[in-house]
């Protein structure tokens, strides 16, 4: 019995240690934050205590609870008496939605272009590579600003624009991996069986490169949030009456001296969210894709 007890203890310890090695506390915290943000975005209508455009002219620029305000407006109110917490919740939904669709558009577009380049090679590939170089050599903020200047702003155009942000990364990854798959190995083995290209790319190549693509998404998703909030901050992104995190910070800038809580809450959300996704991305990369390490 005694020996069994002695040998049991270290086993339990290592199991504990192994759990934290696989799930580091920082990663758990980051995952929890992301889950919280997603839940907030999904249940925004239920969670928001006030309609986000509702004015409360009696309580204009009411401070947040932590800064001596009342619980009626826990995060304070703005110049028009709108509840900052409610606006924050709606902003989280808007920013996450834009980043989500932007990332999806980029991933689908980039992956498709990568497959096309790898499939046709020659001229098509040369054109794609030229576009990739072009996109990578110009800061996207500048391109985005020019497009917004030339074509005007609407929410759908803005989302599509965010989708053009990082397509070239997916295209580059997909092209490279597809070419190596096509040249030797499973893809050519299935091709010589008589399979169609759609079957090869969809059922064989895509699942094999999916983990690399997912890791790339965790890199581009926070970048898209930052880009969206930057443009909205400048007043060139999401337009009032709609609100996003960057929009709120931009608005809060005007009241920096009198009501800093207006910009502090959305700023903190931006930083914590991008940080969490980066942490989870690093962790995923280590787990899923040893080739990226």
């Amino acid at each position: 019995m005694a020996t069994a007890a002695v040998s049991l203890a270290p086993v339990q310890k290592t199991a504990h240690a192994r759990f934290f090695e696989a799930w580091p506390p920082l990663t758990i915290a980051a995952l929890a934050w992301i889950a919280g943000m997603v839940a907030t975005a999904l249940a925004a209508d239920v969670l928001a205590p006030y309609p986000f455009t509702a004015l409360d002219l009696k309580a204009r620029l009411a401070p947040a609870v932590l800064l001596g305000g009342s619980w009626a407006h826990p995060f304070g109110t703005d110049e028009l008496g709108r509840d900052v917490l409610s606006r924050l919740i709606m902003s989280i939904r808007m920013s996450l939605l834009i980043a989500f669709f932007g990332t999806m558009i980029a991933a689908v577009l980039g992956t498709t272009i990568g497959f096309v380049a790898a499939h046709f090679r020659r001229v098509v590939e040369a054109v794609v590579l030229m576009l990739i170089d072009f996109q990578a050599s110009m800061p996207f903020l500048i391109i985005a600003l020019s497009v917004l200047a030339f074509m005007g702003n609407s929410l759908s155009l803005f989302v599509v624009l965010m989708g053009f942000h990082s397509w070239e990364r997916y295209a580059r990854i997909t092209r490279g991996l597809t070419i190596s798959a096509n040249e030797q190995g499973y893809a050519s083995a299935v091709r010589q069986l008589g399979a169609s290209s759609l079957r090869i790319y969809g059922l064989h190549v895509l699942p094999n490169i999916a983990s690399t693509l997912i890791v790339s998404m965790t890199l581009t998703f926070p970048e898209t949030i930052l880009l969206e909030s930057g443009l909205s901050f400048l007043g060139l992104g999401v337009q009032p009456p709609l609100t996003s995190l960057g929009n709120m910070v931009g608005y809060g800038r005007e009241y920096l001296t009198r009501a800093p809580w207006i910009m502090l809450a959305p700023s903190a959300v931006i930083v914590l969210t991008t940080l969490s996704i980066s942490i989870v991305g690093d962790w995923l990369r280590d787990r899923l894709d040893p080739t990226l390490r």
Partner: protein
Amino acid sequence: MTTPLLQAAELTRHYSVRSGAWPFGRTATLRAVDGVSFTLPAGRTLGLVGESGCGKSTTAKLVLGLVPPTRGEVRVMGETLPPAGTARWRALRRSIQMVFQDPLGALDRRVPVGDQITEPLIIHRIGTPAQRRDKAVATMAAVGLKLDHFDRYPHELSGGQRQRIVLARALVLEPKLIVCDEPISALDVSIQAQVVNLLVDLQAQLGIAYLFISHDLRMIRQVSHEVAVMYLGRIVEQGEPDSLLAQPAHPYTQALISAIPTASTRTRRGRIILKGDPPNPIDLPSGCAFHTRCAFAVARCRTETPALRVMADGRRVACHLADTNSPRAVA
């Protein structure tokens, strides 16, 4: 005479290659396969042997229709092989399958074994899902895989088992011909014999023909009914394996056979060491391509390309000296 299963007639494949950067360099022609002809009757095995870069694998790709021939044609059961990707090609390809050198590379590591064996049936739209599964299970049994391998992944199995999966994937369509491109060279020596025996057994049971490509003359001898030796895109000697190995007529064959290692120290034979590397296939020597490395070369070899001629014993040799320089025994 019945139509043979597979016929290659003057099969030629050239590649244009560019040396130097565009637009400077010049284009040259690489003669990967240069006028190869052979016939393979049903249920027989033709072994293709030669050094790497001699055009064996390109010949395999031509036979499968994966690359179009520059000249000449492949006929399967009397029908010219249509270009890859066409419906007719797909239909014909049901009867020609392929086994690869590297089984792990040829398998998708994210798809269970059973699904990979079933996949050819789905691609060619054969049977119902239940029938496909039964067929796959039966084929797995035929190649010596167990039923519980069905849901496993390739990397969970051994090298020999993986090659059996590749073989099962080829067999599930009930082909008449399997092209085996160095099917055992990536396997452990102890496994090689098992896979070769399996191939021979399957031929006896199912009457499959093999185009067996290897650089290993001994392995070729075990499985082949006929052997063709290739050098720089051409067949230099072709014949029945025992006599070809015992009494090679072409100097190149002689050199290849003398390079086979023997365990016995008593029968130390005169080993022929080839001079230098094979010539650059872009810049082939004039006349007989082998004359730069041949110990017996005469002036004629430099100017005139020898044709494949039929010898007295039915063997075919492409050498000007094949008559005078009588086949020497390599004991």
